[in-house]
């Protein structure tokens, strides 16, 4: 079923759209963002500057963007998908050329009023493009090699560009989100099995080559992989952050050390405590109760997205909604695994909570699309 089959009259229009907004989802987003404000206030040592104030402003802007996006009919976004994707690609290339060097990697373009991270934008536009692609593609062609190759290229081009910045975390998220979307679209199991088998084979071959005469990587490269996978082998270097993060998280205990009482974050043992490691501060100060509550909020957001996806009748809406929710899931799952020492440190922020402009704005816009899909579904 395509949007053309919608009876336009049966979808809400004008101010009536407000009534059809998914309000629980909106409230969830505000709660999560508020948890973020609270933690940013805490890590600033009980101050609205330097983080809470800009973050609140950006969230306000984000809400506005979300509503605007939500009220625009979903089919407009479907039509825009390819353009949005191309714009993102151009921006990614632009960041190569004029990007400001920050954090050792070229990641953003300074727009004057904010710094734009095209890779954040890319996460959503890729999902949009793929959703639109499968909406357009006749279903019987979904698993034909040529029609599988096309989306693979759509995924690999931005992945490669992001990897060059270098931003490993985001490239992995792009790959995972793109792959997930192809899976949802119904591409044959065998392709996934083949890719996974090939990846496992490649990795094991590389590792088996270690110490033999046909060694595929240099020794120092292997050592870097070692530290990457297990930071505890380098407790004062790469392992320091993760060790301190685990200490902070664990020391929170059941109910935490109290608001603004987290010694690990307050005394600067935690790195990047306002961005990538903000969850650690939350877990230290509010304990398992606080950390688990945030996890539940995140899970509920996923549930609402899933409900929207299953309720919408057209392929684009379903795919784009689940793609966005998958992106969101990958965001917090990778971040939390990282701070709990389950995954290597790859520099993925905690969505809606970590301090940062682009990611939050883009996520709010993406949830705008989810709202749009919800509002403009036939009832």
């Amino acid at each position: 079923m395509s949007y053309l089959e919608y009876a336009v009259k049966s979808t809400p229009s004008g101010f009536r759209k407000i009534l059809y907004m998914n309000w629980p989802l909106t409230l969830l987003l505000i709660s999560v963002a508020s948890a973020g404000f609270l933690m940013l206030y805490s890590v600033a040592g009980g101050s609205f500057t330097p983080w809470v104030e800009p973050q609140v402003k950006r969230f306000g802007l984000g809400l506005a963007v979300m509503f605007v996006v939500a009220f625009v009919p979903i089919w407009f976004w479907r039509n825009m998908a390819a353009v949005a994707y191309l714009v993102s690609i151009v921006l990614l290339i632009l960041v190569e050329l004029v990007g400001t060097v920050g954090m050792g990697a070229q990641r953003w373009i300074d727009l004057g009023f904010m710094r734009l991270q095209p890779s954040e934008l890319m996460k959503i536009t890729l999902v949009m493009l793929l959703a639109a692609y499968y909406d357009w593609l006749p279903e019987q062609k979904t698993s034909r090699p040529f029609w599988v190759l096309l989306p693979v290229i759509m995924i690999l081009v931005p992945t490669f560009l992001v990897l060059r910045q270098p931003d490993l975390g985001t490239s992995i998220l792009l790959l995972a989100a793109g792959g997930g979307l192809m899976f949802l679209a119904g591409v044959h199991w065998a392709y996934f099995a083949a890719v996974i088998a090939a990846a496992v084979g490649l990795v094991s071959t590389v590792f088996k080559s270690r110490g033999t005469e046909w060694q595929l990587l240099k020794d120092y490269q292997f050592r870097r992989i070692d530290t990457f996978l297990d930071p505890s082998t380098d407790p004062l270097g790469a392992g320091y952050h993760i060790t301190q993060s685990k200490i902070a998280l664990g020391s929170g205990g059941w109910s935490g050390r109290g608001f603004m009482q987290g010694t690990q974050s307050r005394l600067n043992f935690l790195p990047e405590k306002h961005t990538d490691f903000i969850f650690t501060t939350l877990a230290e100060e509010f304990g398992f109760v606080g950390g688990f509550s945030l996890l539940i909020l995140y899970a509920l957001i996923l549930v609402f997205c899933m409900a929207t996806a299953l309720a919408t009748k057209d392929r684009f809406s379903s795919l784009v909604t689940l793609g966005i929710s998958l992106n969101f899931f990958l965001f917090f799952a990778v971040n939390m695994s990282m701070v709990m020492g389950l995954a290597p440190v790859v520099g993925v922020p905690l969505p809606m909570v970590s301090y940062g402009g682009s990611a939050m704005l883009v996520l709010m816009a993406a949830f705008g699309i989810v709202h749009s899909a919800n509002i403009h579904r036939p009832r």
Partner: protein
Amino acid sequence: MQRRFSRRAIVLGGVQAAFVGALATRMRYMQVEQADQFRLLAEENRINIRLIPPTRGKIYDRNGQIIGQNAPSYRIVIVREDAGDVDAVIANLSKLIPLQEEELERARTEMRRSAPFLPVTIADQVTWEDISKVAINAPALPGITPEVGLARHYPRYEDFAHVVGYVGPVSDYDLSQLSDPEPVLRIPRFQIGKVGLEAKQEEVLRGKAGAKRVEVNATGRIMRELDRQEGQAGADLQLSVDADLQQYIQARLSGESAAAVVMDCETGDLRAICSAPSFDPNLFVRGISVADYRALTEDKYRPLSNKSVQGTYPPGSTFKMITAMAALEAGVMGPSDGVYCPGYLKVGSRRFHCWKRGGHGRIDLLNSLMQSCDVYYYDMALKVGIDRISEMSRMFGLGIRHDIPMSAVAEGLAPNQDWKRTVHGQEWLVGDTANASIGQGFMLASPLQLAVMTARLATGRSVTPRLVKSIDGVEQPTGAGEALPVDMNNLNQVRRAMFAVSNDRRGTAYRSRIIEDVYRMAGKTGTSQVRNITAAERAAGVIRNEDLPWERRDHALYVCFAPYDNPKYAVSVVVEHGGGGSKAAAPVARDIILQALYGGTPPLEAYPVADRDHIKEQQLRLESDQRPKARPDEKDRA
């Protein structure tokens, strides 16, 4: 189509749910099961224990005058993060006050290594004047602050250098000597006793370090103090020494290489224990300069050596009382038995000479001691044998180490036959006995031991020396001892002879007598040879001391006690290479004992009429000589 989508959506949702479950489980595991462990790690991160160095105990003399104290000492520190351009600031500072290049170099190295907020010392032991200059110019010197600390200071300067010693920073060597060094020793610039009482009573003086728990951040900056446990200051020591008497003696000995000990006959209290020349221990606290140190080590009078307890000398004729006591106790002679002195005694093929070439003729105990006849003692010694003489020496405190808390307290030597066999692998010879009888040959005694000997002769009790009178106000056991297992009649004979030495017109120390009746003194001179007199020289006439180079002159000794009837003080004086005991040592000892008896400058009436003029002159000179209590640089500190 929609069915497949739903199916896959549910698969994906299931995967996501499983992952969220895994995250929750992991979180629960870390925050509930392992919470205590992580809490502990967090506390370890955050809490540092800093030691608070204890205040070192003070040292007083018996009258409460300060000998060793903790005076404020100023240093200048720089904080890198406040200074900005460190080199420029240091350059500005060096225009104001003198800075040492070595110290600066060390400070720069330290700054490179330590956190930018930690203060680094760039000048230590700065005078008050320089501190004021820095304070006034503070606006031009960002990051520079004067700090005040406590440093050991010895306000009596040279007087107690050998007794009290000095402190200095803990060295790697000091640490290596200890199996389990207290953590407080690792505090930078922490000072411990290096020599003398400061070193021997280190445990008492040091006290116990306190500790404070502080919260630090990741870079080690102290955020706040959590709690503190005050340490325990070191115990104050009160010495038996009288600082004024000590000061007088040091001044009296100046110009000589000499030692003197004043001991209380009853309690064994060391009223003074002097070695000259001396040095300023404060130089060592600050870190002595190479030039100063070289001057001290190259001085032929050896200012660094503590002659009073560490230096051992052949006691010479001062030993004759012991030989006499051994002979009397053994019953080989009576006090009135005579010996004929022809000027020598032939032992085997060798002649042992008396100092008087013509001999003393027939002579008894009283006269032999009074005139210091050697032959009488050769004869006695040969009759009684070295082993009994050695035994008597030990009974009187020679050849044994007295336990006082000073560095390198010498054991001396009271030899016997076994000793020579074990140490030299040779048989004891009769000639060795003859030499030992007059305190020559192998015999060695320190001025401290001679003072103990004299005190024991004076009282007939086994007095032991006591240096520390009280620790933190707790009186220490005195050195009063048991009665010696000797016949008092014999001892009285010897004492009577010692009285004659000083008070009989023919006595060797008659010229250094005391004429104040209640303070009459008994003593014994000694002149110990440091060279052999060859037969040829003896034939040509023994070269007079004045004609010899200083190093080859005889040591002059004198031991005495007073008052004779009721002995209060025993004194021993050794003047290295001073010549004859009666001339070089006895007058010094008399001045000292009078000073002690009168508790200050004695009246001229105590001296023989003939001496009064030059004594008066000497008293005036010494009074003006005695160093002022505060020196110019003292005013800076006050």
